């Protein structure tokens, strides 16, 4: 239904000279656009964490701090310099891969790099995300293709309904229900995912189960739906009809003709899941006390560590934009007709 509302993409006609590498050109344009977006974002993020009330120095020292102590900390953090200088220093650092120091470190009298603070947690989050990805990938591909082949039958209805329910719930609601079942009643899983600093979450796999179950439950429904739609569209396409008319066996038609065309939209599905996880991890890691980047960001916001918030936010946004661009380019690489802007 929304399809009718989406304006058709303006035909971005390639220059009359044509190009031998249309994909490379699109790639360059998308990456340039991504960098521009990130630049605009960096200004917004910096302004939001610097200009508005809630100076990091006074927030960290608390209300009892003497004005002298606040001034000293402001100086150490570089907050007494003009905003443009602060922004330039921060951006230059980011471009060199330096995320700066945490405000908490300054408050303690020393310095602690944001990267040192978050690198282990970033690793934990990547482990969690990867562990979510594998089952979602397998489940949604199998269920999506199966339901498309059995569209309108009982299996289709069953899968659609069963996967819709957890997907419609807020993450923390689903997580709470799972907690009640597996901790309170069955008592087989820990309520808090404690992972020792420096240790791999795989060393204590039971800490991963509930966060992974929650995130899989939330994502598998939409992923299945989108793959089902892509597969259904492929099954109705002309090549499939011609192949059937030629008497090619249905199994071969599905495998050789339909599946391949259905694969392209599913790349987008997995990009969407990766993007969703950036936000989803915030809630789930907080709920289960899982020491990842999401919980780290929530904690930094809670204690007003503006310096850490701005760097972590930019890191997440960069990942987000990179996934978007990579997925678009991958789809274009798989479906050649998209390269010229939808002149099918």
């Amino acid at each position, binding site marked *: *239904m929304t399809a009718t509302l989406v304006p058709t993409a303006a035909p971005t006609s390639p220059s009359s000279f044509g190009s031998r590498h249309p994909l490379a050109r699109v790639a360059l344009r998308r990456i340039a656009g991504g960098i521009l977006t990130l630049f605009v974002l960096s200004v917004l993020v910096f302004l*939001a964490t610097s200009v508005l009330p809630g100076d990091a120095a006074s927030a960290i020292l608390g209300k009892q701090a003497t004005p002298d102590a606040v001034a000293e900390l402001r100086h150490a953090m570089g907050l007494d310099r003009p905003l443009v200088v602060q922004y330039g220093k921060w951006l230059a650092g980011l471009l060199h891969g330096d995320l700066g120091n945490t405000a908490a470190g300054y408050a303690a009298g020393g310095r602690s790099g944001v990267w040192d603070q978050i690198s282990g947690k970033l690793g934990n989050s990547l482990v969690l995300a990867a562990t979510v990805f594998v089952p979602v990938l397998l489940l949604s591909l199998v269920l999506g293709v199966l339901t498309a082949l059995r569209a309108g039958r009982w299996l289709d209805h069953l899968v659609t309904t069963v996967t819709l329910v957890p997907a419609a719930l*807020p993450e923390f609601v689903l997580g*709470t229900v799972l907690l009640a079942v597996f*901790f309170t009643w069955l008592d087989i899983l820990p309520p808090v995912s404690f992972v020792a600093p420096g240790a791999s979450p795989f060393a204590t796999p039971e800490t991963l189960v509930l966060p992974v179950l929650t995130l899989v439950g939330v994502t598998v429904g939409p992923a299945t739906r989108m793959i089902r739609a892509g597969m259904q569209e492929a099954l109705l396409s002309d090549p499939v009809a011609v192949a059937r008319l030629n008497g090619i066996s249905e199994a071969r038609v599905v495998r050789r003709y339909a599946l391949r065309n259905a694969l392209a939209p599913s790349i987008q599905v997995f990009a969407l899941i990766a993007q969703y996880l950036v936000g989803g991890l915030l809630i789930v890691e907080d709920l289960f006390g899982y020491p990842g980047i999401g919980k780290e960001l929530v904690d930094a916001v809670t204690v007003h560590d503006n310096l850490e918030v701005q760097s972590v936010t930019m890191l997440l946004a960069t990942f987000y934009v990179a996934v978007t661009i990579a997925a678009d380019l991958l789809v274009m690489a798989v479906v050649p007709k998209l390269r010229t802007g939808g002149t099918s």
Partner: protein
Amino acid sequence: MSALLKTYSPRRVPFGAALRRRTPKTLSGRIGLALLVLTLTVALLGPLCTPYSPDRTVGIPFAGPTAGHPLGLDFLGRDVLSRVLSGGLSVVLYAGVATLAAYAVGLTVGLLAGYSRSWLEPLLMRLTDVLLAFPALVFLLLLATAFGRGITGVVIATALIQLPPIVRIVRSAALEQSLRGYVEAAVARGEGTLSVLRREILPNIARPVAADAGLRFSWSVLLIAGVNFLGLGLQPPAADWGLMVSENRGGIALNPSSMLVAAALLGALTLAINLLGDALAGGTE
């Protein structure tokens, strides 16, 4: 003459009638409607019939269910039933305000932009791109850093995030309608811009726009509940389903209902909107 021209206008189906005609056809649609009525009733009328004050400590923290307190007590020894009954209003209210505010502005700007085919589009595209380069929750967290904790900032931010996509949807729908013959006829018989927008275009884009508004409301509920759960929105001692799940986490073993009932009602609300939305979308296919 004008009566003659008027007949070219597509027939308008009143939205309420369309809703009534469509919803109950499928089982999941009916379940959705029933759940929605149930949760909205609890949310809107609940605060009027609480057995205790939702803010008063009446016993030992996380005490289990008794005859006087059928859902037990929460982490401060307050009556869970009373808090559940009062905790839905804020969920519906703040999400509703955010969605309404976004739509009030978005509908106006989108209609004008679509009808006048203005320069607004490239600006909107860029703005949406920047907002899309960001998980909404991270954006809210960033604003919470800027404005400090509190529900006002969260509601404003939620409305802001939704504004660009709303303008885009309304704009493209209005643009499509503005090229139709009945709009030309209205202009030809001398209707003013405002009148064309209100009497010709608006009724014809009402259905897709209403469906979108429903989904955005559900999205607002999810987002605001998420921020409340993280402790960066509504502050204690407010009774709110999202906040209740968060603050009673320590008692999941002692009195599970202190968390579960609020979680279930919140889940029922978002599930209901999704089921209804599905039923409506299925009806238009």
